[in-house]
């Protein structure tokens, strides 16, 4: 028996934002749009992202979507029914002529499907991409937190060693094996934040 204890599916704005960002990613990133002077696509993409989310997540009719977004019913329908594969082919240069499909609609549909399949559409937490975590030197912290999920605190050296083996900790340009750092910290460790702090101090000293 599945229990839903928190409101779901209602944050249309957040979902549309995600579809919008994913659409830009599919197009090669914001930088590519700047390079090709395609920034005029952005308003259409934003509109299409909302249409796709309202249609598929809030199950609104075309007339409801048109009223909500201030567009015509025909536009809402064109966006929602665009053939995404044809649009993708066009964007990648595989078609000489621009198809009749709503281009932004097709891209937003691809983005929506990708997010839906990966389960990212309903996830609320903010996620950083790999590049960002690398730059901020926090990849090790993310790894540590994911590996200690469900571990009871206070925790001892042995329990932590088993879970965290193999992680490389990068602090101020230096790289350390977590096993070495675990040798240098005091036990017991009372919680995740204390663990991160102790590891960081051990690496800095």
């Amino acid at each position, binding site marked *: *028996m*599945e*229990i*839903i*204890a*928190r*409101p*779901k*599916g209602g944050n249309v704005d957040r979902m549309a934002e995600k579809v919008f960002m994913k659409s830009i990613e599919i197009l090669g990133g914001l930088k590519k749009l700047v390079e090709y002077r395609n920034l005029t696509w952005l308003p259409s993409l934003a509109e299409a992202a909302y249409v796709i989310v309202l249609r598929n997540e809030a*199950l609104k009719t075309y007339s409801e979507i048109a009223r909500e977004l201030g567009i015509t019913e025909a536009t809402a329908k064109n966006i929602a029914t665009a053939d995404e594969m044809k649009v993708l082919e066009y964007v990648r240069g595989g078609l000489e002529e621009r198809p009749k499909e709503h281009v932004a609609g097709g891209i937003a549909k691809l983005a929506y499907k990708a997010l839906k399949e990966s389960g990212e559409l309903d996830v609320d937490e903010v996620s950083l991409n790999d590049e960002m975590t690398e730059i901020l030197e926090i990849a090790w912290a993310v790894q540590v937190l994911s590996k200690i999920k469900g571990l009871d605190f206070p925790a001892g050296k042995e329990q932590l060693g088993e879970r965290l083996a193999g992680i490389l900790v990068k602090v101020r340009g230096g790289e350390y094996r977590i096993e070495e750092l675990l040798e240098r910290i005091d036990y017991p460790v009372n919680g995740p934040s204390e663990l991160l702090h102790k590891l960081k101090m051990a690496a800095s000293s």
Partner: protein
Amino acid sequence: MARYYELKELETKAPKLFGIPTGTKLDDMFYRIEREGDRYVRKPLGGIPHLAVMNITGVPDTGKSVFAEQFAVTQANNGYRVLFVTVESPANFLYTALKQKAEAMGADFSRVEENIVVIDAAESDELRENVRALIDTMAYAIREKKTSNVIIDSITGLYEHKEVMARQIVRQVFNFLKKFRQTGILVSQKRSAQASESAEAAGGLAVAHIVDGTIVLDKKLIETRWDVNLYGLPLGEVLRTVRIDGCRLTAHDSKTWVFEITETGLVNIISPLSDYVESKIR
């Protein structure tokens, strides 16, 4: 733009009339009339009408939740997905109640468990206080879990301290269930001061005008010698009754029936009140 239909156009859109079993004798009390040769015959529907939104009402402890849970277990055991919105009892308590019901009904609990999705509005202020958030969450559950039945126990809990909003909230929920093609059971609490034969008995606050039909559960305490003689029950006993107050989707039995809640916690409808009284007099 004005929109209208030629009646013929609606033929394909009209829902088929058949019964959705509740696991109680109430299933035989909804019927339709079919022509067989020269005569018309009464055919039991076998449940509440498909896609109906029914209001189950009564004063506290008349068996409304028992009925709703029995319906949920029956549907889930038959392989249909049920969305149960619990507003009064936290989800973990509902789990225990459904498990007991399933055992008493001889249902396969693993199957029942698999087919029921619960929205716990009892423990979430936002879901209970914000109807929009609840409806969005129900839409999510219906779409993702492919449910075909929705139970809200109780709808009254969504407007208990804002009764002026009752009609608006019930209307929103009703329209939502219609749009998402769900058969619905809305449990609503009636105040003890509202007499069972009055219009308020059907949920009060004109809620009954919105829904497709109302089932009224009632209980009578045997407290006078006259009651003892009439009902053949000892002083202090409780006589439970059920009646279909109205249903706009199909014909139904209009008698008041006597029922009991069995030791195992199931609704068992016994006989029409008139027959029951007659049998006791004899």
